């Protein structure tokens, strides 16, 4: 359980931190698209006998780069790029899962999250990738935030916008890979997006929006995991419901402040 809590803490901080930049770029659903590609990666791991987290990470990175490539180089609209990768990912996952004969409880743990299946190895991977992701965001925060504020102006000034976009997509892929044991592939996008939207109701600056979102993500992950453990519920759904509850709370706070 302690392993699960430590993993959840990293995921609760990382997912909204990455999601913040996705939401600001109006790419809120990219986490879902990458998640479905990660599903294909998990299935491939079972088929090849490789740790599913590793194959999921590779597949998620490939999916993230594909979405950015389609958007930037092929001039595909953002939602169309997402749909292409989203459906190709889930289709490949279903086919590979069938080939591997892996449609079992273990696979469902990746889809919906599972507390008890978190191992020390998982925690080490979550820790390294998660803290690495948070470090990258700390280092790139100003660049990513500035590019969001005025992308065209930044492009004129010679800022490598395409590289920053790929960096955000890669961070989203890492987030999906490290979060799938806790929240599950199907709900990780929610933990990336809901805390950010909730925080925006009460934030007074971009920085405060990011930090409040990370606080909400952490609280939702730990509270959701606790309730899931004692009530024997799926952790992913419980965590996301806490994040949705945070949105109701901040919306009420915003309304009260406006009166």
């Amino acid at each position: 359980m302690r392993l699960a809590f430590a993993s959840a803490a990293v995921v609760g901080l990382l997912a909204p931190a990455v999601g913040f930049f996705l939401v600001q770029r109006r790419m809120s659903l990219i986490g879902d698209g990458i998640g479905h590609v990660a599903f294909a990666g998990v299935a491939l791991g079972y088929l090849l006998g490789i740790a599913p987290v590793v194959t999921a990470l590779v597949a998620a990175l490939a999916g993230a780069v594909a979405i950015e490539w389609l958007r930037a180089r092929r001039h595909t609209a953002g939602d169309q790029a997402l749909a292409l990768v989203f459906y190709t990912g889930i289709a490949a996952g279903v086919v590979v899962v069938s080939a591997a004969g892996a449609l079992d409880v273990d696979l469902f743990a990746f889809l919906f999250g599972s507390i008890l299946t978190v191992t020390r190895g998982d925690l080490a991977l979550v820790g390294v990738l998660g803290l690495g992701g948070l470090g990258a965001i700390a280092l790139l925060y100003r660049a990513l935030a500035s590019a969001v504020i005025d992308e065209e102006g930044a492009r004129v000034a010679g800022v490598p916008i395409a590289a920053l976009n790929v960096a955000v997509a890669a961070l989203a892929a890492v987030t999906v890979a490290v979060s799938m044991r806790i929240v599950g592939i199907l709900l990780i996008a929610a933990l990336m997006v809901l805390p950010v939207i909730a925080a925006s109701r009460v934030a007074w600056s971009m920085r405060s929006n990011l930090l409040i979102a990370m606080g909400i993500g952490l609280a939702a992950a730990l509270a959701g995991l606790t309730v899931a453990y004692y009530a024997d519920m799926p952790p992913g759904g419980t965590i996301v419901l806490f994040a949705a509850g945070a949105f109701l709370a901040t919306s009420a706070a915003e309304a009260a402040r406006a009166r």
Partner: protein
Amino acid sequence: MTPAIELDGVSFAYGGGPPVLRGVDLRVERGEFVAVAGPNGGGKTTLLRVILGLERPAEGRALLFGEPAHAFSRRSTLGYLAQRAQLGTDAPATVREVVAAGRLASGGLLGPLRRRDRAIVDDALARVGLAELASRPLRTLSGGQQQRAFIAKALAAEPSLLVLDEPTTGVDAEAQEALAALLDRLHRELQVTVVYVSHEFGAVERFVERLVLVRGEIVFDGPPSALPEVWHDPSHAHA
């Protein structure tokens, strides 16, 4: 000294369509304040994009400070206010956060802003009269104040060339006058080259040394006082 902008025989069309610009010759010296006007669809924004190196001419050449515009090596010194500049995010960015975004290219991509960069941001805020409102979310400001914040963002780059595309769109006449006066003051104080693009130039006419009218080609280039009466409203139907 090489001019800030030099266009020689520039023609441009989007994706095999009809030409948007035809044989444009334009030379803007360093430190000039030039207004570019013309009707909507007349090619003003395309002309800007060619000047800034975002589009390459189909014919002719475009130079920025003597270098090919598309390969200009000092892009961080280009201050650009896009058409209908608005926050590209729903997050409640403060005025200071918006202006600090202007230091991205010159202040480096990694880590927080250094002390010198923060001082430049403070200076830009003061120059446009927004120092007192620096901590306010941009979206709580009036349209004119928001435009001033974006001008400060462009100033934060310490630009050698300041390019403003329709900066007065969506702001009232009083705010337009105030913005034009602000740009005039900044131009004189900073000795920066300013290219101001607008479909109407009433507010800025008193301040600019030179007016360029564009209708696919340059149909007038000179001081506003020399502008024939027939051109005074550049959006009218006269050819």
